């Protein structure tokens, strides 16, 4: 059977076999021992034509409730934000998406320059000296920060705030297991890292203290108070940060962070059921040679023209092998490009405006919930999420909201025993006043109904 991706004709095949000097393609596989040779064909679904397959997969996609048809109030690390339409047009240029790692700089200047610009934008937003070309996601970037800190300080303990994303904490633990590093959780106080507890916990074995800014509950951590405690113990200060929030919030670099990591998904990258997103990794100048992953640097050719190359490669697995700073090879280059385009489109003013809109709309949500008598779990400074006490089943509430065309928030009871019956609500710039009002009205009605049925 002919296939549109396979150009070989039977005449080609015949000519090529003759050149090789064999009778059949099978002969080329004669080095596979009889005992392990797979006979016949895989027992998998038969091939489908282009139109039959797109029809089937469109139907499968149609079984999922997406954030275009439903108004989403779900965040918890992945957000429904404005995606400038230019983003998809840029990353659909196949010179970008069908290339691989730019090992040949003369024919990869486009990719290299785009990454150099990404590194600059991330450094600008985070207030750090430099950023790398990307990591898999925010969770693994945080884990790599822990590994860097342990190597740099030669210490074997990581303190991670309980207000760091639960799944990121899980990933940190798995990486730490491999390196026999101890991970200890810092307790919470009013939805933020308990500073007094931290003071007691840091010691001469602490490689790093990890906090999230804004944290998992949307609360903005007090980095200014945390920093001297961390550095006082000789540990590195690691901040995991939503870069979109940094359009309005003082960047971690200003507060003395040594490593700032996070996920650039809020900048133009679809939710995509959790991936691929785009981790970033930013550090102070001092840690430049310890960074995992690829770095692009500026240089010149023999005629003095500016150009870009992969640089400081002596850190990386293909050169240093078992002594590399990380095993990362493929990263998230195309998504870093998407984030760059979104950051460019928003630009200097838009980056602030979008962040302020998130804060403002979340504040409005909070006020409306309070007016309806809801208890807000933590009342400190917030970014675009708040934790609200529902009292009854968050799962049932979400089912009720879904009936009204809304995707409700995250059930905090799934990750925090003490927060059973609490919902983490995200309000991005995508949510209109109308949608917020409808949401508050629905959860109010749900809670009243539940109370009435229990009375």
């Amino acid at each position, binding site marked *: 059977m002919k296939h549109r991706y396979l150009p*070989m004709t039977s005449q080609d095949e015949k000519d090529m076999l003759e050149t090789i000097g064999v009778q059949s393609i099978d002969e080329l596989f004669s080095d596979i021992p009889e005992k392990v040779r797979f006979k016949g064909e*895989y027992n*998998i679904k038969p091939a489908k034509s282009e139109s039959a397959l797109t029809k089937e997969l469109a139907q499968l996609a149609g079984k999922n409730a997406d954030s275009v048809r439903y108004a989403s109030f779900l965040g918890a690390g992945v957000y429904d934000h404005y995606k400038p339409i230019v983003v998809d047009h840029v990353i659909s240029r196949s010179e970008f998406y069908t290339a691989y790692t730019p090992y040949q700089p003369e024919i990869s200047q486009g990719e290299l320059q785009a990454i150099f610009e990404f590194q600059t934008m991330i450094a600008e*937003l985070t207030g750090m000296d430099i950023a790398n070309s990307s990591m898999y996601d925010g969770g693994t970037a945080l884990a790599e920060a822990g590994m860097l800190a342990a190597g740099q300080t030669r210490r074997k303990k990581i303190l991670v705030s309980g207000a760091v994303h639960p799944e990121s904490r899980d990933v940190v633990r798995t990486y730490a297991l491999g390196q026999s590093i101890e991970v200890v959780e810092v307790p919470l106080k009013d939805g933020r890292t308990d500073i007094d507890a931290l003071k007691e916990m840091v010691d001469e074995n602490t490689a790093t203290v990890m906090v999230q800014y804004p944290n998992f509950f949307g609360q903005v951590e007090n980095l200014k108070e945390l920093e001297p405690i961390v550095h006082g113990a000789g540990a590195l200060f690691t901040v995991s940060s939503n870069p979109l929030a940094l359009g309005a919030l003082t960047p971690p670099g200003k507060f003395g962070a040594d490593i700032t990591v996070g996920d650039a998904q809020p900048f133009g990258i679809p939710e995509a059921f959790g991936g691929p997103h785009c981790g970033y990794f930013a550090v102070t100048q001092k840690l430049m040679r310890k960074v995992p992953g690829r770095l692009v640097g500026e240089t010149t050719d023999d005629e003095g023209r*500016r150009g870009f190359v992969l*640089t400081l490669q002596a850190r990386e697995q293909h050169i240093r092998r078992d002594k590399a700073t990380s095993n990362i090879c493929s990263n998230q280059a195309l*998504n870093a490009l998407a984030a760059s385009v979104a950051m460019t489109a928003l630009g200097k003013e838009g980056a602030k405006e979008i962040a302020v809109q998130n804060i403002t709309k979340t504040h409005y949500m909070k006020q409306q919930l309070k007016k309806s008598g809801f208890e807000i779990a933590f009342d400190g400074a917030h970014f675009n999420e708040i934790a609200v006490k529902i009292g009854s089943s968050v799962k049932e509430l979400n089912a009720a909201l879904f009936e009204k065309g809304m995707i409700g928030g995250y059930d905090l009871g799934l990750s925090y025993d003490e927060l059973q019956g609490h919902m983490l609500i995200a309000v991005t710039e995508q949510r209109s006043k109308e949608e917020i009002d409808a949401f508050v009205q629905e959860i109010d009605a749900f809670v009243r109904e539940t109370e009435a049925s229990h009375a």
Partner: protein
Amino acid sequence: MHKDNQPLIFEMTKQGRVGYSLPELDVPEVDLTELLGQDLVREEFAELPEVSELDIMRHYTALSKRNHGVDSGFYPLGSCTMKYNPKINESVARYSGFANIHPLQEESTVQGAMELMYDLQEHLKEITGMDEVTLQPAAGAHGEWTGLMMIRAFHEANGDFKRTKVIVPDSAHGTNPASATVAGFETVTVKSNEHGLVDLEDLKRVVGDDTAALMLTNPNTLGLFEEDILEMASIIHKVGGKLYYDGANLNAVMSKARPGDMGFDVVHLNLHKTFTGPHGGGGPGSGPVGVQADLIPYLPKPILIKTDEGFTFDYNRPESIGRVKPFYGNFGINVRAYTYIRTMGPDGLKKVTEYAVLNANYMMRRLAPHFDLPYDRHCKHEFVLSGRRQKKLGVRTLDMAKRLLDFGYHPPTIYFPLNVEEGMMIEPTETESKETLDDFIDAMIQIAREVEENPEIVQNAPHTTVINRLDETKAARKPVLRYQKPTDSE
């Protein structure tokens, strides 16, 4: 091609221009300082560009023209499987029901996505011959580390704490030893023999009761099938170690030999290679891991299971190594790989491997008279030439790679694997036509002739690219890793 620099996007900035469209704020404004406190309110803007939407498109279009992808031309980069990236994959991954769904939505609202993941796992189980598959790892190296962590957990669960060593061949990809280190192991190298295959005697010498695993690609990085695979498996299993399959080269053996049948205990796949990811300029990839039954308890959690009520994520996995990534892997890439597998079907995947191997052998035979061929036997999907002969004439493999740029080709992988002097690793893939292969072969032969007759043209290559060879030493000695806005005095 014009050789003018494309300015950095920051250099195109003009105050007052914007490239975005946000809705007017429809709720009451707030006083940020009052709400957050003075310390938390950012004082200075982040210096992001200020450009119009057309500026953005022109800039990135200009950058794309300074980049070579598979759609631009032949890209025989060995070990990377730079095959055609089907456009249907791109369309399907953008369906709103796949692109715009949240990983923490109620499971009942994402059953279609979970069904796709489940069915992809089933297909990958059949293709690899393994008992279970996780889609969580984000890329090949991530999959390697995940697999090694599971092997470690397996040994430790058996009270076996002395297995500290992972064996890799001298021809292994750099991620193998790097992943072993991250998983807490020490790396031991096993030598290749004169045929380019793992030296069984050396393997017997390095194995022992401290062996955790042997990591292999088969075919290996020379493109040669490890014929003694069953004996190697037996050597490793006899000492209680596990056999790890690096799936970077799976394109060579689909429907011909399955890792599970060769005795492998763990396998990772690179969905952005064999299964048309695409490569994205360096990623995102996807690196699912398959295991034999005895390693299933250690798979990263959650596990996707099928019940009478539908698909669900099972978090109750007490022996799991834990999470290796937030959520469930690079779903968007997995959608593309699934679309590809369903496009090809069983007969298509078999032809993929047959043509990939046919193409590689054809090129190898036609190029063999002009370059050194260190291992003269049928190759699989790729082969390695040596530039020893040309080096004696003062031209290095790097020079020849740069000269290929003048012909519009992406060069092969060079100086890898490490056990071949002046190596050139060529992987044509099955999606290239005979005409493309012939044109590339002609260019290679012409370059070989130039080396003898006019070496300067090769040594000074490239001549036609937007930029000449760049000063990499300068880049590393005084690293400039970001743009700095000039101060007023400059």
